[in-house]
């Protein structure tokens, strides 16, 4: 590890929301107190708070770097701190203390870094997440932050940057998979007028925490990506929209913006090109629909988060009527690595139709919950079974997995029989699911699919903005009909009505929320229809 060579001994403690919830705060306090109090004869290890170390289910996570070697520990408590520090100070990785019961206890917490969960990861978006201190600009700079921005400002025109992104084949990571280069060109080639860029960090899908991890673990990477996008489309001003439910991400991002502005990395005119970019943070107010781009713009403008009909697309007329580029956090955070390696090298990763890597947050009924970044085109099975370990105690070829829910309330379910499906936008869509933003929720055989559909439908009914009728009234009716089905009070006629309503809501709703709200229902009906029909009341034709 590069970092290990400069700092001989350091303890990287995951200080992201997941590990904080698992007790990272108490562990940090214990480590801090022990380090303060001295103890140990060797060089004093440095305690460094970092972003996500990936394996959230085993938190709090702590990596001990010594020279070139690194050991990852999970689930440590204050009790293990003295033993840990003894190893850090005296015998890193040594085995001479194996008979010491406290060392054996500590070893039990050590995680195998060669396990597929870590070994199959291909970090680009997350390449320095977990290595850098998200609160320290100098540390980020030492890890290469802003280097691509400065290189591009010095050597490339905006058109060249766009061409490079086009060559890379990068597609929007928010879920729709729109080609990023094409979107950039659409904004850049509008008639001369001010342009704006917006980073969409309103990550609201249940089970999705990719963007949060980027913001909490490596905020300067997002700022660099956003500034590069602004340069490429000719924008001088941008917004980062983050949901209010991410207080730690907001705090770190705000600090990063202030640091970058004070240091002159952002906000000041570049001597060669005159390019100056000012980002501004906007915090959401709790509406899921604000992840929809036109609702997001309405919210930034200070109005109700209500979508409007497209076209015109924000790339043509967005904030204040200006051409506005809206990219997902992960899309923007992929740019520094993409531009460093070059478009062609990036395009060589994964399938030609959707190259690159994708960050997934794996949760639900799995042994290893956490964050993985893998090449596109990898099979679902590799992620949820080989890497995440399948259902705890699960048996059989599918590891006890019944289905995988992808894409949250706008996505769908794939049954275990389809686990070998390669992950890409079109493949999952053809099977009635969708890649979505990257949340993968693993379901075991205790999950009733109609109940899952009811749950997501109730979520969408609660999050519908109320503007268009099919979404506002249709989702409510669907949630109620599914509730009736779960209570075994629904008839075959009701199931017919459910299907008719689902089709109308999908086809006639104004924005993506309504258009995709029936997806979990439709996909579970497609793959698990028997679970619906077995709950129906027997036919009573004279009552219909």
């Amino acid at each position, binding site marked *: 590890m590069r970092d290990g060579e400069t700092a001989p001994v350091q303890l990287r403690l995951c200080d992201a929301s997941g590990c904080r919830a698992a007790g990272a705060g108490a562990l940090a306090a214990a480590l801090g107190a022990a380090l303060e109090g001295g103890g140990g004869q060797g060089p004093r290890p440095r305690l460094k708070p970092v972003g996500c170390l990936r394996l959230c289910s085993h938190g709090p996570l702590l990596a001990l770097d010594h020279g070139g070697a690194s050991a990852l520990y999970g689930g440590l408590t204050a009790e293990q701190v003295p033993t840990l520090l003894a190893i850090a100070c005296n015998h890193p990785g040594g085995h001479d203390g194996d008979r010491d019961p406290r060392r054996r206890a500590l070893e039990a917490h050590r995680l195998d870094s060669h396990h597929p969960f870590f070994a199959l990861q291909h970090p680009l978006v997350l390449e320095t997440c977990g290595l850098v201190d998200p609160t320290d600009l100098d540390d980020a700079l030492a890890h290469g932050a802003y280097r691509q921005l400065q290189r591009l400002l010095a050597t490339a025109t905006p058109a060249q940057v766009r061409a490079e992104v086009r060559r890379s084949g990068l597609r929007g990571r928010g879920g729709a998979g729109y080609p990023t280069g094409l979107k950039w060109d659409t904004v850049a080639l509008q008639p001369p007028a001010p342009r704006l860029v917006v980073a969409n960090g309103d990550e609201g899908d249940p089970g999705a925490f990719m963007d949060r991890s980027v913001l909490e673990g490596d905020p300067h990477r997002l700022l660099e990506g956003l500034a590069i996008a602004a340069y490429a489309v000719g924008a001088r001003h941008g917004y980062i929209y983050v949901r209010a439910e991410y207080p730690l991400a907001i705090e770190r991002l705000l600090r990063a913006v202030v640091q970058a502005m004070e240091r002159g990395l952002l906000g000041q005119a570049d001597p060669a090109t005159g390019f100056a970019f000012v980002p501004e943070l906007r915090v959401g107010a709790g509406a899921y629909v604000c992840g929809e781009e036109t609702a997001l713009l309405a919210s930034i403008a200070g109005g109700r988060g209500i979508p409007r009909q497209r076209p015109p697309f924000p790339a043509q007329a967005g904030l204040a009527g200006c051409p506005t580029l809206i990219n997902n956090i992960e899309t923007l955070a992929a740019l520094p690595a993409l531009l460093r390696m070059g478009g062609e090298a990036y395009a060589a990763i994964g399938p030609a139709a959707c190259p690159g890597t994708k960050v997934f947050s794996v949760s639900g009924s799995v042994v290893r919950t956490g964050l993985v970044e893998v090449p596109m085109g990898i099979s679902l099975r590799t992620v949820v079974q080989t890497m995440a370990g399948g259902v705890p105690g699960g048996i059989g070829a599918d590891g006890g997995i019944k289905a995988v829910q992808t894409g949250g309330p706008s996505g769908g379910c794939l049954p275990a029989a389809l686990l070998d499906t390669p992950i890409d936008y079109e493949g999952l869509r053809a099977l009635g699911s969708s890649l979505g933003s990257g949340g993968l929720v693993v379901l075991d055989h205790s999950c009733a699919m109609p109940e899952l559909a009811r749950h997501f439908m109730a979520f969408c009914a609660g999050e519908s903005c*109320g503007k*268009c009728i099919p979404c506002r009234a249709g989702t409510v009716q669907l949630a109620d009909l599914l509730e009736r089905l779960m209570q075994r009070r629904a008839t075959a006629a009701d199931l017919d009505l459910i299907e008719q309503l689902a089709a109308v809501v999908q086809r006639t709703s104004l924005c993506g929320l309504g258009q995709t709200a029936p997806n979990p229902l439709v996909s579970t009906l497609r793959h698990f229809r028997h679970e619906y029909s077995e709950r129906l009341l027997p036919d009573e034709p004279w009552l219909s």
Partner: protein
Amino acid sequence: MAVVTLQVNDTTVAVPAGVPLLQALAAAGVALPTLCHHPRLSPVAACRLCLVELEGASRPLPACVTAAAEGQRLRTDTPALQAGRRLIVELLFAEGNHPCAVCVANGDCELQDAARHVGMDLVSVPYRHPSRQVDASHPLFLLDHHRCILCSRCVRVCDEIEGAHVWAMANRGSATRLIAGLDQPWGTVDSCTSCGKCVAVCPTGALVAREDVPLGRWPTP
């Protein structure tokens, strides 16, 4: 001004380029029900009743905001559009409380007209019978939330034409409701000029003039 020709259900019509497709429908003599649309107000494309299928488009588009362009071929009467339109009207009838027989707007109601237009003879989704309120705090008008379909015409007419900004929407989803001022009784909103434009554009009996209500059930404040 450029003029474009396009096809509406096999009829070729000519309209100025860029006008809303609703104008092309009118030129072709095709009437579609509209509830949120009002010719004097900005379009919001919320009621989804004027959806049409445009050749080459992946999903139906609202005729009230989609711009007319040369060579477009659109259909207004496919089975999917008709079924969708009908279900949307049924959803509206089930969502609020619309007993036409006792409504002041009976016979002069655009929701009723829409139901007749789509051939609604039964509401196939369960009635929700929501518990809503009547705001009788204004000396000249009444607001009956039971009959409100949240089309937002009143919000727009007050904002765009009267300039008084009395109306807004609060909450979201099925809890969305029309509010006056800062969610206060209408009669206490100082900015209301009592112009009655909201009453004039209301497609249902949600906003009515007291003088049109035959019996004085709601005492004047």
